[in-house]
């Protein structure tokens, strides 16, 4: 609750800062302070200190899971702002507004992480989406940016429609919007519930960019300004997954036999399309877009398995994936040439950036001692624990092997090919942040307990 309100409040502050603060740096520092405060109050709440007591009539409930994810999201955002905040200046003139929107989005993130009522889910998703439409189109003169935002808008609105129809049908059968009160009782669930559940599944898959509802993802991620792609590919996607698993755990947990197979199919399709299509990409940015799809496929394994391992693992996965991807995009945002060739000889000219990026790539590829491995490991373990559909697991690892193919292309370019030097606007602070980030990735890979123990005490 703390974070929810503070983020909204701070969004307003940022809004005013746009004409109060003269210098961009001031705005940036204000934003960083805001994130730090958010983090602080959120951790306070985890320690049981609730600043505002507001009765939401049980529509939102901040349990440890939600709070822990909020912290992950805020930390990621903090690192994101530290790494890419400066680069937002290149996008357009409305510097402060971008931060405003980011804070509003964080508000939505806090909402979808803790909803107990479908109404809240709907509001949260919308609060996340609408600012994203804008951020995607924020590079106004750039046709790609425009196109991306319009595509995103049209398809996003469409999926909203689906979601609402789903909610309506469920309401029809259950007579309530509370996730607790759905599908209770009867052995054979009502067709209305099932239909509504499917529609919700589709719209959530859409937001999580799971095949076959992923089509917007590559275009939007590719078209949007890289700094914002970084944000929506990591924190937002993670939030959506948290919402996804919450929804299907609390609302449809008892109906698991009804939807498990479908989720398995969706996961398999996502893995297939994400990985296979990424292989042939020529632009690293677009490759990362597809890789985000393939990672989503792995996260869907958690929804598919839906057991305690799955939830822990999903938290770890969101952390690992967000951190690594933010790091990569931060480097990418500084580069002129997004093609693989642009990375040639990177290691000789920017050894530190190359090394850290390598760690991120290894983490995404799921190499041991990086957070990426353990998170994938959790997913596989959770899926195997269900004791059925082992084909899905084997398929998943084969696809993971394929993913090595495109992640390592970047490594090869950086280390084993020659290229001329390109000047990047890299501050020492940036380098240090990258180092810390890489350290974090390794640390989570060796001691995941540091993160996961928070769930329990």
């Amino acid at each position, binding site marked *: 609750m703390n974070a929810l309100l503070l983020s*909204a409040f701070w*969004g*307003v502050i940022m*809004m005013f800062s746009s004409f109060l603060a003269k210098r961009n740096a001031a705005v940036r520092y204000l934003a960083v302070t805001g994130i730090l405060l958010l983090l602080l109050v959120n951790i306070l709440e985890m320690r049981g200190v609730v600043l505002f007591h*507001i*009765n*939401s*009539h049980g*529509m*939102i409930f901040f349990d440890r899971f939600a709070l822990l994810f909020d912290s992950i999201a805020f930390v990621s955002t903090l690192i994101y702002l530290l790494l890419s905040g400066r680069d937002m200046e290149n996008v*357009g*003139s*409305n510097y402060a*507004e*971008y931060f*405003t*929107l980011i804070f*509003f989005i964080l*508000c939505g993130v806090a*909402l979808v992480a803790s909803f107990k009522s479908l*109404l*809240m889910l709907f*509001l949260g998703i*919308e*609060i996340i989406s*609408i*600012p994203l*439409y*804008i951020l995607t*189109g*924020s590079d*106004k003169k750039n046709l790609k940016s425009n196109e991306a935002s319009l595509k995103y808008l049209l398809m996003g609105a469409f999926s909203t429609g689906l979601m609402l129809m789903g909610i309506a*049908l469920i309401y*029809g*059968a259950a007579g309530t919007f509370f996730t607790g009160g759905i599908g209770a009782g009867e052995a054979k669930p*009502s*067709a*209305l519930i*099932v*239909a509504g559940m499917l529609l919700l599944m589709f719209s959530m898959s859409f937001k999580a960019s799971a095949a076959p509802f992923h089509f917007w993802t590559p275009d939007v991620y590719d078209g949007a300004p890289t700094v914002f792609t970084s944000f929506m590919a990591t924190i937002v996607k993670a939030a959506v997954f948290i919402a996804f698993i919450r929804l299907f755990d609390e609302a449809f947990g008892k109906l698991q036999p009804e939807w498990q197979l479908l989720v398995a199919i969706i996961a398999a399709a996502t893995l297939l399309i994400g990985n296979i299509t990424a292989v042939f990409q020529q632009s690293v940015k677009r490759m990362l877009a597809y890789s985000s799809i393939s990672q989503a496929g792995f996260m869907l394994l958690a929804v598919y398995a839906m057991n305690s391992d799955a939830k822990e693992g999903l938290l770890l996965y969101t952390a690992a994936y967000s951190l690594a991807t933010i790091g990569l995009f931060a480097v990418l945002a500084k580069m002129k040439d997004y093609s693989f060739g642009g990375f040639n000889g990177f290691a000789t000219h920017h050894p530190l950036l190359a090394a850290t990026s390598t760690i991120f790539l290894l983490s995404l590829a799921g190499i041991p001692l990086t957070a990426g491995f353990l998170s994938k490991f959790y997913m596989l373990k959770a899926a195997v624990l269900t004791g059925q559909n082992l084909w899905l697991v084997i398929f998943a690892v084969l696809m993971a092997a394929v993913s090595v193919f495109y992640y390592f292309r970047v490594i090869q370019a950086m280390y084993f090919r020659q290229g001329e030097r390109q000047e990047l606007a890299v501050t020492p602070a940036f380098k240090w942040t990258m180092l810390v980030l890489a350290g974090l990735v390794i640390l989570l890979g060796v001691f995941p307990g540091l993160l996961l123990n928070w769930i329990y005490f």
Partner: protein
Amino acid sequence: MSITHLLFWFLSVLALFSALMVTTSKNPVYSVLWLIVTFFAISGHYILLNAQFLAIVNIIVYAGAIMVLFLFVIMLMNLNRDTEPQKNKWLKLAGAVAGGCLLLVLVAALKNTEIKTQVAQVNEGSIGLIQSLGKVLFSDYVVPFEISSILFLSAMVGAVVIGKK
């Protein structure tokens, strides 16, 4: 065959027909107008269901504000001729067929649910009245109400970011 029934059928047919016209009419302006008609029909349904508040809001917000906004935009771009080049036949057909199938499937799936015997209470019941809704909205639903303000704020900021030259 009471008056309510007649009205119900009339409004339903009107809604469906005008909705179809929205999707089929060449001229965007016509589409807008047909959409307004649809909204009116739906508001009629609300009134039948004795949800007066929503009926009014529907007229004011949708027909009044949103559709006018649409109209302005269209005129701003002066698309009021049927300038739209036709999409290729097959895609259209495919779209129509897919939609039709979806309709069939959904109807088939939902035609006999356990609630099919129940009825929606028409032209009585007080929950639709402004007074009672207001109570609920500002007691139980105050948090979402406040949160929705964030939505508007972001929309506003967005309009600025996008619209400002």
